[in-house]
């Protein structure tokens, strides 16, 4: 569409939102909106802000949505999904379920409720991030040169994937699938450079 072509005026849309257009003009406007995505977008925004959403409920939803969008896990999951790996389906489901969880209330921040003990004796051993039952988020700091990191979860159903990422870095998040041995579920990340990382385990 070029700018020379017709779009609905904001006044027409306003009158349509208020139900004040004569029948025939209402039909013309609605028919136009059915075919013009740009105008439909404007109409939806006008309706959302000035009519349907002129409320504290919509205000609170906007605040939650923006907080959600700036959540470090959500940003990392979106970046991981964009990589289009084999586990893309898992990542997308994870993102969806995170979105659903946020609809109910905020999830704990990294290093808060999900803080976990970390161990890794020698430089050749993997740093083990052992998640306590019910915990799904943790942190790991690698102070020397590159190390491998193993995320472990005891008991329960085996999670599908773990995510390891540095929220301050432009590097893509690392994703590892869980394996089970001797009743312990573990996901392995090799050759992780020095830095401070967040770890998250998928909720399924």
């Amino acid at each position, binding site marked *: 569409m070029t700018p020379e072509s017709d779009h609905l005026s904001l006044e027409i849309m306003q009158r349509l939102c208020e139900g004040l257009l004569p029948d025939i003009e209402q039909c013309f406007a609605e028919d136009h909106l059915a075919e013009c995505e740009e105008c439909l*977008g404007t109409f939806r925004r*006008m309706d959302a802000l000035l009519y349907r959403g002129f*409320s504290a409920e919509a*205000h*609170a939803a*906007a605040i939650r949505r923006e907080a959600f969008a700036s959540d470090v896990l959500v940003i990392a999951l979106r970046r991981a999904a964009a990589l289009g790996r084999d586990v893309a389906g898992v990542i997308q489901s994870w993102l969806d379920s995170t979105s659903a969880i946020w609809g109910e209330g905020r999830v704990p921040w990294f290093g808060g409720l999900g803080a976990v003990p970390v161990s890794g004796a020698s430089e050749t051993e993997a740093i083990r991030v052992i998640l306590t039952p019910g915990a799904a988020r943790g942190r790991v700091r690698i102070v020397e040169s590159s190390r491998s990191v193993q995320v472990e979860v005891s008991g329960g159903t085996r999670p599908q994937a773990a995510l390891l990422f540095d929220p301050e870095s432009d590097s893509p998040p690392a994703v590892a699938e869980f394996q089970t041995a001797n009743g312990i579920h573990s996901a392995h990340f090799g050759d992780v450079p020095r830095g401070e990382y967040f770890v998250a385990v998928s909720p399924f």
Partner: protein
Amino acid sequence: MKLTAEELTAFLDARKDRIAAIVAPADVEVALADIQGRIGERLADVGDRPSLESLVKVEATDFALRPWYTRFCCDPPDGEAFRQLFEWHEAYVKTEIRKTIRLHLASRGTEHVESVMADVMNALWENRRTFNRKKGAYVPWARGIAMNKARSYRSFNRREVSIDTDRDRPEEFPSGGPSPEDASDERLGDVQGPPAECFAEILRMVQEFEPHETIAFLCNRYLDIKPALIARSLGGSSLNEALAEVVRLVRARYPDITGIEALLAPIASRISGLTEMFGQYADAGRELEKEIGRWAERVHRSVSGTILQMGKRFLKLVCDLAAAAHEIICFLWIRFLLSPPVALLNVADRELMDLVEIFHRSYPPISGLSRSQVESCTLGLRGKISPGRSLNDFGGSDLYAAIKRWCNHVESLLWQSASSEHMLGYAYITGSLTRGKSK
């Protein structure tokens, strides 16, 4: 557009084939005469050629449907004709009605559309005698009813909120999150709603009204409480007490809205010395409940209108931003003219001043601003343009990506400038600001 009867005849003759595709072939000549007669009476109302095209289609369809609706829009009604109209012509009639319902129900799902559709069918039958063919065609009339039904359905399904007992029984009140019904439609990750800053700006704007009107708006529209309940619960409270109740309710129900006291500080300061009761502001002899509805409506309408009138100042703000002329021009085309970036590629070799000229021609019909108003807003922008330069001179090897980058750059500058001027609402509506403030 002024058309003479002869010009209308020529216009219809040129569309004879299209009309023949709608009415029975044997009826084309009769249909042409009928359509000419009906449109001829309303020539003055027909704004432009696309409207005339649409009107011809509507009237041709109405001609085709008339044998059915004339049999049930009368006494005694023929129920079989009503059934036949909607079954035999379902592809057209019901599709058009569904189009209306979908639009006005916003994001609600198919089951809601079908529920409203059933209501519409009942209403069309019950109101059949009110249809007047002299005033217009049947399907637009039916779509008007469909719109009203969809809007009622939407408001009816809003949760009813009470005011006075949540202190004791908070579990009965909404959490502030989407209702379970909405949750499937509005997942946090998918929906692009108004940025939170827009709501904060609107709250500032509503405080510019008389304090009792502002409180009526906050209770009725912002908190979704019915006027009768507001009148009963707050009619005997002072304005200070009423405002304190608003703050308490927001905190209790919507904990995500932090700092509500700061947002409502202007009205708190205005009413600090007032002792009148909220109910005393109703005119003598008028019911407080109705007055509250009227006050809230007045604020709502006025704020909506103000936001839409902000176009001129907002356009000027954009044109005066500390950004390069080519960046601003791309922003104006994409966000104000709703033109996709690819359309700019087609004119990338034209001088920047030409693109501004096209903007001068194209924006007034969308915005309702006059051409001279638009031109006065772009004065600062035009002052920055060097003659002979085009978008091609700035884009490098990937002009498409550059155009999108320029647009985002202007948007980020706007976030820093627009807030203090109460323009975020308009900016959001026009699509000029679609994202929340980056953290």
